[in-house]
């Protein structure tokens, strides 16, 4: 029996006669770890690329014709041009984008969706096929021979003329390149608020949990800057993607109003109206001048709507600030009425109300940053004031809380007079007029309302039909009224316990009744919006209907039930609390009413989570997805 001798020149270890087996395996394992490619083959490859032109890309020969020769002129920009007839759906562009740009495991800035044209498969019967008198099938034949057809749609950032992402960003983490029109994202500026993922109608910016920021397609700006093609353009075997120069419709008002005026124009089936952001990508299909591939096709993932992110810190922020502003308004109205009757108002009452309002608002504002991936960068939040409702919300609600804090300070200082240094109290007496607290209190109301308006506009501005003005304002406004009244009742009853001022029990009871009625009314509206189709809905896209359908998803069953329970429980507590107040049971009344407020806030929080999770919005065509298993569905439900 002979041993096999080591084979490659790099291994010289001889096998010893004594321990042949052991050595053989050792040698084989060693050989396995030796890399031979460089040694054996690289010299030739390096010779192919002499140093002089080593930076000249080999692939240029293929993509050169897919790029414009120059930079865009004034009032022009770059755009993706997609030849749909050439796209065979291979997804090389998706993988090349991921690979050549060094993106994360599941990150790619290009996606490929699929649409079907023609009749649904289940409608296709032999009789349909036999009755067909097929003319020459051509590039686009729709349902004339009964066969469903398939079209793949590659999509990336559309480098919109009026980018939603850029407009929504509170910290100027986006800019639109003045020459190329490329919408670029500045990763080091991003705070990870994800608002751009709501503002972009095409789901382009994608959030990375690891990085705490979003990233998006920059049309391989770095490559274009040296005359190289973007990764997707380089990698398409069928040359289906190229870069072209297009005229900006925003160059003159006429073309812009034409583009904005047509709410039916979409770049792909199921996509949002192009009037929102003016996307620049052009999808070209031969023999389809009427764009039937858009109007008559069905995305494969049509109706495959899944619960969206819960955004629970945002839900908490919304509900807390709405409650805070609501109770300030209610308390201010009551105080004014009180003063109008000529009664004297003990400072304890506004102090209690304001402190409660302050604590609730601050709790919400402090939960909100949990939503951010990069909270330390948040200080730049004012940079977006010109276009971003999020920026406006943050700044204005900040001012609102500041005003309340100042008012509290003014009310507190006189109470602490004995413990404060002379200098402070003197300065206070000299500089702070007696009406200052009331002025700040009243001033905080418009600030608060402006802040709440901005909050609502954050979602309305996304143009998602389920978040339209009417629906959003009804829900948000309802929360202001019912929670504001309830919290004010709780605060007033507490104040009347703490201070000498006796607040009429009937007032507290009346407020409780009012709050219960408001809550019931709000709940009724909410139910109608969520579950009952109403004719007044402007729902030509069907997206609100799909939102309602999504709410029947099993993962929503328990939040919906809990929400109802919270509503009923809050009403019960208010009844109990008002009885306790009426019979004058010392601190029990205020405590029960505070519990009522907390339960009501929880209910509103659940309503808001449903508002976020149930939203179905227009999207670019996707691919048929397997239905999530029940365990996945449960996981989704609990994550809410």
């Amino acid at each position, binding site marked *: 029996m002979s041993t*096999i*001798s080591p*084979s490659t020149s790099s291994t010289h270890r001889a096998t010893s006669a004594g321990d042949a*087996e052991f050595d*053989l*395996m050792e040698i*084989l394992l060693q050989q*396995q*770890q030796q*890399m031979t*490619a*460089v040694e054996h*083959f*690289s010299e030739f*490859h*390096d010779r192919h690329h002499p140093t002089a032109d*080593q*930076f*000249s*890309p*080999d692939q240029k*020969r*293929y993509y050169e014709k897919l790029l*414009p020769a*120059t*930079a865009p002129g004034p009032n022009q920009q770059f755009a993706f041009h997609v030849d749909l007839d050439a796209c*065979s759906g*291979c*997804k090389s562009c998706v*993988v090349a984008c991921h*690979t*050549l*740009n*060094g993106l994360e495991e599941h990150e790619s800035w290009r996606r490929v969706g699929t649409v079907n044209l023609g009749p649904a498969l289940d409608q296709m019967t*032999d009789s349909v*096929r036999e009755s067909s008198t*097929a003319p*020459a*099938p051509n*590039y686009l034949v729709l349902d004339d021979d009964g*066969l*469903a057809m*398939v079209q793949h749609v590659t999509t990336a950032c559309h480098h919109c003329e009026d980018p939603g992402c850029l407009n929504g960003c509170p910290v*100027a983490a986006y800019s639109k390149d003045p020459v190329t029109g490329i919408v670029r994202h*500045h990763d*080091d500026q991003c705070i990870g608020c994800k608002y751009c993922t709501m503002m972009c109608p095409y789901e382009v910016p994608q959030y990375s949990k690891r990085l705490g*920021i979003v*990233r998006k397609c920059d049309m*391989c*700006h770095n*490559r*274009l800057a*040296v005359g*190289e093609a973007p990764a997707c353009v380089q*990698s*398409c*075997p*069928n*040359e289906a993607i190229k870069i072209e120069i297009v005229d900006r419709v925003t160059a003159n008002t006429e073309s812009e109003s034409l583009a904005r005026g047509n709410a039916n124009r979409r770049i792909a089936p199921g996509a949002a109206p192009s009037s929102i952001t003016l996307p620049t990508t052009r999808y070209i299909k031969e023999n389809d001048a009427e764009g039937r591939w858009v109007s008559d096709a069905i995305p494969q993932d049509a109706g495959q709507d899944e619960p969206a992110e819960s955004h629970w810190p945002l839900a908490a922020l919304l509900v807390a600030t709405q409650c805070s502003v609501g109770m300030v308004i209610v308390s201010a109205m009551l105080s004014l009425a009180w003063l109008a009757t000529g009664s004297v108002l003990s400072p304890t009452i506004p102090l209690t109300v304001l402190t409660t309002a302050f604590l609730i608002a601050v709790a919400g504002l402090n939960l909100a940053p949990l939503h951010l991936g990069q909270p330390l960068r948040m200080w730049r939040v004012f*940079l977006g004031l010109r276009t971003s409702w999020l920026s406006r919300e943050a700044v204005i609600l900040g001012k609102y809380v500041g005003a309340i804090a100042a008012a509290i300070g003014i009310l507190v200082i006189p109470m602490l007079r004995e413990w404060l240094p002379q200098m402070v109290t003197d300065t206070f007496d000299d500089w702070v007029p007696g009406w200052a607290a009331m002025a700040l209190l009243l001033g905080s109301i418009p600030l608060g309302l402006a802040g709440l308006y901005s909050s609502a506009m954050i979602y309305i501005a996304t143009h998602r039909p389920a978040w339209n003005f009417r629906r959003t304002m009804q829900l948000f406004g309802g929360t202001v009224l019912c929670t504001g009244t309830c919290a004010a009742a709780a605060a007033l009853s507490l104040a009347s316990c703490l201070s000498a001022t006796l607040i009429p029990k009937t007032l507290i009871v009346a407020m409780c009744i009012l709050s219960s009625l408001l809550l019931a009314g709000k709940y009724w509206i909410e139910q109608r919006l969520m579950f009952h189709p109403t004719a007044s809905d402007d729902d030509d896209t069907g997206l609100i209907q799909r939102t309602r359908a999504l709410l029947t998803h099993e993962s929503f069953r328990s939040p919906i039930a809990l929400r109802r329970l919270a509503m009923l429980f809050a009403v019960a507590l208010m009844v109990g609390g008002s009885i306790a107040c009426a019979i004058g049971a010392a601190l029990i009344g205020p405590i029960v009413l505070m519990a009522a407020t907390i339960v009501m806030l929880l209910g509103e929080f659940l309503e808001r989570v449903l508002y976020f999770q149930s939203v179905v919005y227009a999207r670019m065509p996707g691919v048929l997805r397997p239905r999530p298993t029940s365990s996945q569905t449960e996981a989704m439900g609990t994550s809410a």
Partner: protein
Amino acid sequence: MSTDLTRREDTTAFQLPQILQARDGKMTRSLLLHPGEHGLGMTHASMSADTTTTATCGFCSTGCGLRLHIRDEQAVGLTPETHYPVNLGMACPKGWEALRVLEAENRATRPLLRDDNGTMRPVEWHDALETFCQRFRAVSEEHGPDSIAFISTGQIACEEMALLGAIAKFGMGMVHGDGNTRQCMATAVTAYKQSFGFDAPPYTYDDFEQSDVLVFVGANPCIAHPIMWERVLKNKQQPEIIVVDPRRTETAMAATEHLGLRPKSDLPLLYAITHGLIRRGHVDESFVQQHTDGFAAMRDHVATFDVDETARDSGIDPRQLHRVIDKIGRGSAVSLWWTMGVNQSYEGTRVAQAIINIALITGNIGRPGTGANSITGQCNAMGSRLWSNTTNLLGHRRFESAEDRQQVADILGIPVERIPDRPSWSYDKIIDGIETGEIRGLWVIATNPVHSWIQKNRLEGLLDKLEFLVVQDMYHDTDTAAHADLLLPAAGWGEKEGTFINSERRYGLLKRVRSAPGQALADFQILRAIAHYWGCGDLFQSWTDPSAAFQILKKLSAGRPCDMTGIDDYPHIDRAQDLKVRQCLAGCGTDTFQQSIA
């Protein structure tokens, strides 16, 4: 010379200071691209290379060239090879991700042996191979050498499958062994053998660009072979594209004629087309006379397939079928292509022959842009047809032929009586043999029958009936490995050397550019070790490494239609990148070897 497409002289834009708008920083820089050397263009740091080398993709039979980015001797990334004549700088997603599969968590890293409790436990290679030999030998001694068999694959290099077949049959004395290629294109192989006398698809990818009529039967290259479809789209002849497929596939969408026939009506339809071609005088009489026989019998056979009637039976408008017949008949370079839609059917061989016959009677063969062309599937399915030593003796010889056996014995320097004188059972017979108790030991290499063979439940039951099942695979957790008594961990593509033959018969090179995980070994190394432990190492002394094995394969091919003696060695393949074995029709003479440099 590079042009900056992002600057214009007349534009200066206001920008916020960086303290307010951080346009640069750690996160931005993490995606920065740098000018890549070696002709790579702008490159991300993760893929920057000291040097590059090209290897043939190991995913499918297209055989694309991938440019491996080498840093510190290991491949860190890849891009499609610009200069490779197959893919012309492109790759499909599988090619782009070729290195990623090597990093899979379920890679087999140590030999695993099932203990008495039925648990797979890591063992040393030495113990694994001792067990391998003892157990197989025990079965063989008790039940005879034809009671142990092997299932080969289209997924390993030519050198490896040749050594596997040689060791199993000439060394270990096995009679039965077949490949997973049985499942995909055995029908095409049989059709070619019966029609041409020798098996190999007679085309090059260039034919996609040269045809003026392309007929795809049961093939959807848009999805299954995207890079071949790339070549179709490069066709400048404005070709007619005729697609025969029950589904309106992506390829059918791009067709000029889609025959959306009823399932299982392909054979009558092709006969009707043949009949129509003959009736309209589209037969190339001189070609038929000089190069074919049996024309009259075929003509009589297809005469019963009336065009209109068959069209209606197939669910096709007769007018369309007439139009298609005209287009095929009038085409000056008609190529007909098929793949699994034909191969995997109950009368696949006959359908393939019907396609071949259309090419033959119209003289659409042996010229650029023509041919009856089977597109294969696995990366080295073509290699297995020549070199697996399963149902054919090495180099497409016959076990039954004493002359062939003698040739092989002489070339390999082994006693001729070591070569079985009867052909192997095919895959299905081997499986049946387990049921009847005729097969009691099985060695499965680089394939996963429980996943791919029909009647999964039956097969699983049968595998458990085996006295000894060895699985040699890259992954430790395949469906078949779950039934194994012994698992041998194999290195994968990129971790070993060797050659593949692609669909157009081009020899492509594999390179070792990644360390195999743990103790995984290249199949070639595992086989050398097995020969040694079995005690037949001296028979295979000259198979020292894949490049030496390649020289043996050259000798085995000499003078045969698959002659590749014109290839010097691996560096020659690497330099030329365009080395193909020329396929010749039986009787048309020269078995030549084509070489050109891209």
